[in-house]
């Protein structure tokens, strides 16, 4: 069971209202992953949004680029809220990782019930998309011999 207090301390959710955090806590789950495990694969149906609690995740994009996420509060799996609802990168654990998991379907239900919450959440998602766009869209660079 995830508490509202835990979520309030997460950077990603810092400016959300108490009632919204309470709703989010109701659909959140703690998940643990071992070093080397893959949380999701690029191209797979995106079912959940994750918030990083502890550990390091490496986002590997199909063009060969990658981006390590280390700080607490990073969100991964924004594709669960954006069409065509397929992950755009593969998320691999570089260490033992603990995450908050939010079902994409449940998040949509909350967005439909509360437009302001939806706006706040989608603004955050847009920021993340913009940050990662360079990695995602960048053309493959081939310097290697293999």
């Amino acid at each position, binding site marked *: 069971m995830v508490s509202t207090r835990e979520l309030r301390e997460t950077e990603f959710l810092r400016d959300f209202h108490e009632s919204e955090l309470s709703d989010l806590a109701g659909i959140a789950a703690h998940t643990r992953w071992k*070093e*080397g495990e893959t949380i999701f694969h690029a191209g797979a149906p995106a079912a959940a949004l994750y918030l990083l609690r502890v550990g*390091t995740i*490496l986002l*590997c*994009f199909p*063009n*060969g*680029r*990658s*981006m*390590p996420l*280390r700080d607490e509060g990073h969100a991964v799996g924004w594709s669960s809220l954006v069409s065509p609802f397929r992950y755009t990168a*593969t998320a*691999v*654990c*570089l*260490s033992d990782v603990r995450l908050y998991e939010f079902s994409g379907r449940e998040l949509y239900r909350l967005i439909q019930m509360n437009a302001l919450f939806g706006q706040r959440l989608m603004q955050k998602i847009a920021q993340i998309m913009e940050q990662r766009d*360079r*990695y995602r869209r*960048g*053309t493959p*660079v081939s*310097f*290697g*011999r*293999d």
Partner: protein
Amino acid sequence: MYGLKAISAANGWTITFTGLAIVFTGLVVLAAIMANMERFLALWDRRGELLAGFKHPPRKQPFLVQEPRTDRPEAPTTDKTRVHLPLDQIEVADHFHLITNRLGEPFSLAQLLEKASKHGLSSPHRHLDTFLKLGIIVEDSGDRQGFYTWANDVEIVRSSAEE
């Protein structure tokens, strides 16, 4: 004639010791090759530059110019940040180097992890995380953002506790 006399008469002792010497010499040579296999492979990977150096040796100076001695202090050498690692991580770094020599720089971390896993390296993800945290492997910039290189200004040294 039977027994030891027969062996001596037919040079049996000489043949026996010669055979033993041949077998053991072969084993010693084989062990030396196996022990240095990593170096041979590293040389094989660098064969292009080595051959290029052999074909185009650096030009010799036509004559030496004696520079006047001055009392000026020597220019400071470029400082490298020393990163202390335990022996097992140094070995993993060497292994990563062999892989990235093949991949070329800048390299993809996903490819590095894939190759390291295929080579049976233990916990490559954890080691990569450490190298990234310590700035031993750094992200490239510009249109190569998302690809990585070995930091030039970092020198890996063995932890003093292990020396």
